[in-house]
């Protein structure tokens, strides 16, 4: 049994995919669309205010998810587009890239959505997002002073996230 979590995070971080500092920004949302965390490393262009920006990002993912599930050629039974899905139903995407950036996405069954935006040539970041999820568990969820569903204000989490992201992207 385990309490008072050790500071050691297992499994150890996956090996960096590409070297250099390529990460642009990171979002963490919960199921209710509340932005728990927004970190920015390199974002020259900003057109919206933060609230609009977060909402747009969440909406993009939500719609993209239902579209990808709708287009899935392998599953016979599926609901109409836009009809809420039960968790676990349908497929889910894990990244897309454009000519200027790559967005990697992970959603846990508990509804936490992790989004990392990086340089378009970054490799597969699924393991990295899993590692970030472990960081979140260790430094946020296990912090008794943190109340679930509120924005994350944890210096140690931010520091280790910054450090880790610098090493991957």
């Amino acid at each position, binding site marked *: *049994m*385990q*309490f*008072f*979590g*050790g500071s*050691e995070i*297992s499994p150890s971080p996956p090996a960096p995919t590409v070297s250099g500092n390529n990460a642009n920004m990171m979002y963490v949302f919960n*199921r*209710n*669309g509340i932005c728990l965390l927004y970190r920015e490393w390199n974002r020259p262009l900003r057109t919206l205010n933060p609230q609009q920006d977060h*909402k747009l990002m*969440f*909406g993009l993912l*939500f719609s993209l998810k239902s579209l990808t599930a709708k287009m899935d050629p392998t599953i016979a039974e599926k609901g109409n587009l836009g009809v*809420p*899905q*039960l*968790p*676990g139903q349908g497929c889910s995407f894990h990244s897309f890239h454009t000519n200027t950036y790559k967005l990697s996405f992970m959603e*846990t*069954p*508990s*509804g*936490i959505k992790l989004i990392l935006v990086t340089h378009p040539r970054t490799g*597969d970041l*699924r*393991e990295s997002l*899993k590692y970030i*999820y*472990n960081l*979140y*568990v260790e430094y946020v*969820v*296990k912090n008794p002073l943190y109340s*679930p569903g509120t924005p994350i204000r944890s210096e140690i989490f931010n520091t280790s996230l910054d450090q880790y992201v610098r090493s991957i992207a």
Partner: protein
Amino acid sequence: MAPAGPRSGDAIFASAERVNAELFTLTYGAIVRQLLTDLEEVEEVNKQLDQMGYNIGIRLVDEFLAKSNVSRCIDFKETAEVIAKVGFKMFLGVTASVTNWDADGTCCSIVLEDNPLVDFVELPDTCQGLYYCNVLSGVIRGALEMVSMKTEVTWARDMLRGDDAFELQVKLLKQVPEEYPYKDDE
């Protein structure tokens, strides 16, 4: 890159940092004892333990998902198996079994032969209505709620009340679909 498969409860239990089992048992005992002193009513203590468990459960589920690599369960049957085989092993070091399914697969029993919470415990006559391990039912309820399953968890058998095992009845009330959380005109 092939995704790593789910890890077994044993593997996670072996790699996790643990505390001494007796310290754990005694700490839990002290909490229940204190609640009994503070709240006086056994019913209130049951409620409070359940609430504490719920608060634990809504956090614990993330740790569970992060460490176990379990992906989404197909149905409630699989969910119950995962709780019994992986969840209990990972956090308490014991395994439970799942039995007594009803016909539509929405209600089952999780049976614990071995329960580290109750070592050294005897219920005095004044506390016969106490569900000593009520924290566990709260944990399960809280954790399942975070993965969109509303459940009702009750004790069917309790060794401290003279039964031969601990049996938790888990009833799936409904699965909550994921909806777009913002209103259109916001």
